[in-house]
Every structure is written in C-alpha cells, then in structure tokens.
C-alpha cells in the first residue's frame, strides 16, 4: 500500500513532465542545492546552455520570492539568523518548453498590490520589459518589498511566453498565490 501510494504520487508528477518538486519550508540552502541539481540535470541532458541559464535564473527569482514573501514562515536565531518560507517549487518540461511554478500563501492585504505588479509586467512586450527593467534598476528599493518587482521583471524577461499567475482565496486572512513561467 505504502509503495503503491507513493508510486502513484510519483507517476502523476512524471506524467506532467515534472523533473523536481518540493513542498514545505524553503531555506536558502535548499535554493542552492536544488539549483545545483537542476543545472547538473539539464547539463547531462545536453540542454542548450542559454536555456539552462534562463531556467536557472527564473528558478532563483521564484524561490527567493518564497523565502522572502511567503506569509507562512518561521524565523529564528539558532544561533545564526535563519528565515524559512513555506511554499512549493516545481520544475518540469511540457510541450518542448521548460516551466518553473512556485506557490505560497500571502496575506489578503497584499493581493491587490501583487496582482497589479504582475499585470503590468505581463502586459509588456520584450522592449517594454527592457525599459521597465532599466527604470527599476535605477530606483531605490521600495519599502517593504525588498525589490520584488525587479525579480518579477527578470522572470518575465527570461520567459518565452507571458507569465501566468493565479490567486486562490483561502480564508479571511490568506490567499494562495501561484506563478508559472515557461522557458
């Protein structure tokens, strides 16, 4: 039973072309280790080096967003400062394109600001993204956001299709947020 349950779980992921999937509290160490494995796997599979770099870049920005902005988080000094944000990280291959999907809880009060940022970025073409990126590069970091906008632009610049995102209301406090990029 046990093996069957997890075999079915693995099979359902495999059928969706998923190469890596992680759910839980994400540390900076996990970002680094998963990122290394991702690069190694893509290099062994003889993926075009420029594609590997783009996937890696989207992966880093997405995972850092979970670590920094997930509303489901723990922090402590044990004894060095550790910040863990909970979320899911999925990297796969579908219809001849790679994709990176990340998801995490956010506070309901942050939904509208995030949605409008994402909509602005999704509405821009290649030249528009380039101009917006240059503008954000010069700006002092916005308060609170630790620079999320530039990360979203970076994801959209590396993606080969417009970014997809969705919000699922959970309760009075929380919304589940999901962002997908194809490369």
């Amino acid at each position, binding site marked *: 039973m046990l093996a069957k349950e997890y075999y079915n779980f693995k099979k359902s992921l495999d059928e969706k072309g998923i190469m890596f999937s992680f759910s839980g509290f994400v540390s*900076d160490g996990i970002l*680094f280790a998963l990122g*290394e494995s991702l690069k190694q796997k893509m290099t062994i599979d003889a993926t075009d080096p*420029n594609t590997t*770099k*783009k996937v*890696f*870049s989207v992966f*880093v*920005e997405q995972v*850092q967003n979970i670590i920094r902005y997930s509303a489901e988080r723990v922090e402590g000094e044990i004894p060095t400062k550790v910040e863990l944000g909970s979320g899911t990280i999925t990297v796969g291959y579908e219809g001849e394109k790679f994709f990176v999907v990340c998801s995490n809880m956010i506070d309901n009060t942050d939904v509208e600001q995030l949605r409008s940022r994402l909509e602005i970025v999704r509405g821009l073409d290649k030249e528009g993204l*380039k101009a917006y*990126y*240059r503008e954000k*590069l*010069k700006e002092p*970091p916005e308060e609170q956001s*630790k*620079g999320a906008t*530039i*990360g979203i*632009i*970076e994801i959209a610049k590396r993606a080969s299709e417009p970014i997809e995102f969705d919000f699922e209301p959970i309760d009075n406090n929380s919304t589940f947020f999901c962002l997908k990029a194809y490369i």
Partner: protein
Amino acid sequence: MEKIVREATDRTPAVSFDFENGIFSMKGESYPEDASAFFGPLHQALEEFLDSEFDAPIIFDVEFAYFNSSSAKVLMNLFQLLEDAAESKGKKTVINWHYNEDDDTMLEFGEDFSSDMEHAAFNLCILG
C-alpha cells in the same frame, strides 16, 4: 586604503579592490543569500576611495556568468558611484564589461548598465 581581496565562492564573485593603483575587478557568479550584506562593505569602501585625492584613471573590470536581480541592483549602485565621481569630481573612471560572445543575457545586462553611464566610460568587451 588596504587592498580588498575575496576569493570566489559558488555564489559570490572573486573581488579585488586595489586602491593604491585604482584597479578593481569582480569575476564569477552572484546570488548570495543577502546581496546587501555581501556588497555593502564593498560599496562603502569604493565610496570612501572616490572621496580621496586619487587622481589617476580608475579601472573597473567586471566579468559575470550569472547574477540575480538583487545583485543587479547593488551592481548598479556601484557603477552609479563611478558615474557620480566622473560627473561631479572630474575623475576618469572606466568600466570594462567582459562577456562571452554567445552570452546574450550578459550582453543585454551590459547594455542596461551602460545606458545610464554618461560620464564614466562603459566598454562592452567580448572575451576571446
């Protein structure tokens, strides 16, 4: 000022700030856990140096294979210091942006940074 030398790690670039000769370099990858913690002291040291009487050309060689968006912001701030020193203090500052010919991403980043440099020289240099 004492020379700053840092070895490259998997996530941070090799750094050499030779204040005596005005020769600076960064090479490698950059996606540290905390970009401000890594680059903050470098930014401060460069700022202090640019306030000094040093009047020979200042050369800044940069060669990256990858950096994340937080690193891009702090790099921009470093280049801005060189631009400001060239504009307001008349210092001769040169940034050499080294990239591989087939690396479109690094070429584009070089163009992004250079678009804001009016007084500092910003050269796009193909590695070869």
